């Protein structure tokens, strides 16, 4: 962490960058916040640890409008989102300085709570990210790091940064689960079971828009759900339509662009596994149109703005999904 702070100070000092985008300590040890640092003094509050899960690439849309370069720290998976945004002309590469940071998997306090640990006061992570010491009202508890990891890290995309100006720190292979296992489990259900499953999950939604706000692919200046472009004369119907179809349409809009960064599920206050929509599209795209990783580069045409003459017919695609 100190290495990151030192390098950031250097780049600020020699004028390479005008500001630094990173994480600072939050009100608790387990919830660091995204923050800008404008000088060496402010950088003293910089933190980088297992709880720094937030994907910073989306912030660069606004940062690109500011004077001078912004230094940003991107984890390997965040770099895919960065590339995708470059492809969509949303961020200005010339106004960013990317330091790829090492990642050994990210953890969340929710997972620790899920393990039945109550009264958490603070959390300490050991140097090698093997174990976590949780200080609680009822004494210290030790938890294996992997048990507190986010779902996305169990199916990690890899240790490499697909874009960066320099890389600091080492990453670790954290994959220990099958990426599409959950999607396949749902695919195997009967139509009624599927409907019931998604109905139960989606009914928890409070339309707080946290998923939309955090999603690097959901970067529209104005969301289609906030404009009148699709409504018909009867406003009441529109409301119910957008309320009910929100997640399905959102998933379609980011299909072929979603990097599976998992931020949507991470930030959902209701714990809805929103990534299951996106991952279904990714699975289908890979199956029907060839392996595709959104954001792997900033040039390749996305699968939904492309075609081949002998693509699968929709009726066969549906059967193939069974």
């Amino acid at each position, binding site marked *: 962490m100190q290495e990151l702070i030192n390098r950031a100070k250097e780049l600020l000092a020699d004028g390479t960058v005008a500001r630094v985008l990173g994480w600072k300590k939050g009100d608790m040890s387990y919830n660091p916040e995204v923050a800008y640092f404008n000088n060496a003094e402010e950088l003293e509050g910089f933190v980088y640890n297992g709880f720094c899960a937030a994907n910073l690439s989306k912030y660069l849309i606004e940062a690109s409008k500011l004077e001078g370069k912004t230094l940003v720290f991107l984890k390997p998976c965040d770099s895919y989102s960065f590339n995708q945004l470059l492809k969509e002309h949303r961020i200005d590469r010339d106004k960013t300085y990317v330091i790829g940071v090492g990642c050994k998997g990210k953890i969340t306090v929710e997972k620790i709570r899920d393990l039945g640990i109550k009264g958490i006061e603070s959390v300490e992570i050991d140097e090698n990210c093997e174990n976590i010491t949780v200080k609680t009202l009822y004494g210290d508890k030790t938890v294996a790091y992997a048990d507190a990891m986010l779902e996305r890290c169990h199916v990690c995309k890899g240790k490499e940064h697909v874009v960066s100006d320099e890389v600091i720190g080492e990453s670790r292979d954290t994959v220990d689960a099958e990426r599409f296992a959950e999607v396949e489990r749902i695919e195997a259900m009967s139509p009624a079971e599927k409907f019931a499953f998604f109905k139960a999950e989606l009914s928890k939604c409070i339309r707080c828009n946290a998923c939309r706000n955090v999603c690097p692919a959901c970067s529209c*200046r104005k969301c289609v759900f906030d404009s*009148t472009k699709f409504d*018909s004369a*009867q406003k009441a119907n529109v409301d119910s339509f957008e309320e009910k179809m929100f997640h399905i349409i959102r998933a379609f809009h980011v299909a072929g662009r979603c990097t599976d960064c998992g931020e949507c599920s991470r930030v959902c206050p209701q714990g809805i596994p929103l990534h299951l929509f996106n991952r279904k599209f990714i699975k289908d795209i890979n199956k029907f149109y060839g392996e595709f990783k959104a954001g792997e580069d900033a040039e390749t045409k996305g699968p939904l703005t492309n075609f081949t003459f002998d693509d699968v017919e929709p009726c066969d695609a549906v059967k193939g999904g069974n």
Partner: protein
Amino acid sequence: MQRIGVFVCHCGSNIAATVDVKKVVEIVKNEPGVVHAEDYQYMCSEAGQALIAKAIAEKNLTGIVVCSCSPRMHEATFRKAAERAGLNPYMVEIANIREHCSWIHKNIEEATEKAVILARAAIAKVNLNAPLKAGESRVTKRALVIGGGIAGIQTALDIADAGYEVDIVEKTPSIGGRMSQLDKTFPTLDCSACILTPKMVEAAAHEKITIYTYSEVEKVSGFVGDFTVDIRKKARSVDMDKCTGCGVCQEKCPSKKTPSEFNRGLGNRSAIYTPFAQAIPNVPVIDRDACLKFKTGKCGVCAKVCQAGAIDYEQKDEIVTEKYGAIVVATGFDTIKLDNYDEYAYNQSKDVITSLELERVMNAAGPTKGHLERLSDGKHPKEIVFIQCVGSRCSDDRGKPYCSKICCMYTAKHAMLIRDKYPDVNVTVFYIDVRTPGKNFDEFYRRAVEDYGVNYIKGQVGKVAPQPDGSLLVQGVDLLDNKQILKKADMVVLATAIEPDPSVRKIATMLTASIDTNNFLTESHAKLRPVESPTAGVFLSGVCQGPKDIPETVAQAGAAAVKAIGLLAKDKLLTNPCTAKPDELLCNGCSACANVCPYGAITYEVKLINDHGIREERRVAQVNNALCQGCGACTVTCPSGAMDLQGFSNRQIIAEVDAICR
């Protein structure tokens, strides 16, 4: 809020017999926005249009819905009527209650209910319509004709005579097409070459006509009035400017074993060749697959004997790019393959031939120098059997379901010519029906029977069996006599079905012109627009549209020319105003829309945008209305809904969905 008038047409009894039009009027009166509703016998009639105009004026209507036939039929009529009455023509919507309702449903209650729903959808849509204004685009005063047969030649001549530049693209080394292969023509027995050659010469000499032979259309882009076409001029290996057409190279060429395409494979040609003596241009091509120089590197005889130094082994294919205002397709036909008709022994006996092959046999320049001979042994035949409808009128997958139209007449011609020249030859024709609609056609057929003694038997042939003695045993039936017939013949001639030239599929795809299940090009309207493709600026000439004889082909070629001239005569075309329109405030500048646009109509511009007080430079999409054809691909790819299609907007279509699912 719109003030909408709804006009329900009876279409005589076409609609009114199955849809209770009065009830439709009563119900739609209560729809939101509707201030007027009435029905009438024929809305498209002058009186019907007057009713609409009157209502627009009196009720101050801002939009109208006509419940009638398909918009493909009368949308233009009603738009014009509205415009004359002072309403923007794009404030008109059609509810198709004839083709999509009254004609396919029998139950009045059901059909009336559906008509109401279709009307509601149109009303919901027109509530959200906005006046649109057509733009203008330029017209390139040049036409392209694809195919250099009689259809293409005639079309080109007619367009050129009207004063416009025309290019003919022909894939073989010479223009002339199928007609150049024919010996005589029915029902006048003119010599085909004698009437075709002057046309070919006229086309070649015409200052407005450029002929690209041995060339193919490779790529087409653009749209009506402004097509851009890449033409591949295949390497001829002979310099067109230097060659004098002396023919020595063909004489001296040592490779003479290639079946002649012109003679339908009945004779051979040299590797360097012109297809026939009157070829235009009279410049040979080297068939590189047959040429020893290209196959082995040794030979070069033609270059040695050519005094003009025209042989160029290094010549490469050349791409010519040209702009056109109109394109005429005249790709013609070929006969079907007979591989699936073993019973006629076509592949087993040289003496079973197609009618087109007989044309070559009868022709003085053909493989037998015009003598009627058996191709197996050169003997003079005594007994010839003609079999009609080989592969035509077949509903199985061996043949074609349509009537090839020309066979009855050319068979009568062949029978008559043979009986005339060789009275010793007996001619029998097995037929299912003899179809002779046409001027002097039935008289011609009767002459073959009455004056020339051709034996017509109503019934088909079941089998042709080659015999050890070289004859052919024909087993047929005489249905009128109810007898089976066994006949020994020396030659059998098959009236083989014709099909569109296989090249038409690729061309139709390039032109985005639609094609039917038999690969004939579809016309815009089967009765009223028979020479126009539904794709604007593309016209149809000759057999590519459907089976035709020569006079019909020439007539249609002229008609296609007139349509093309009508287009070329315009300085500007009104463009479809239903184009894509971006909302700059919503645009992310992500380029997704530009990626899917087939016309390159979307570009990006960095602009100063004032977004509710926030002023900043943004990359936003711009649509070129002259290029946009209004497909809507961009609108769906846009996640923020910034891109919308005028006339088919998101809100309009959603309103229709809502009205239908209400």
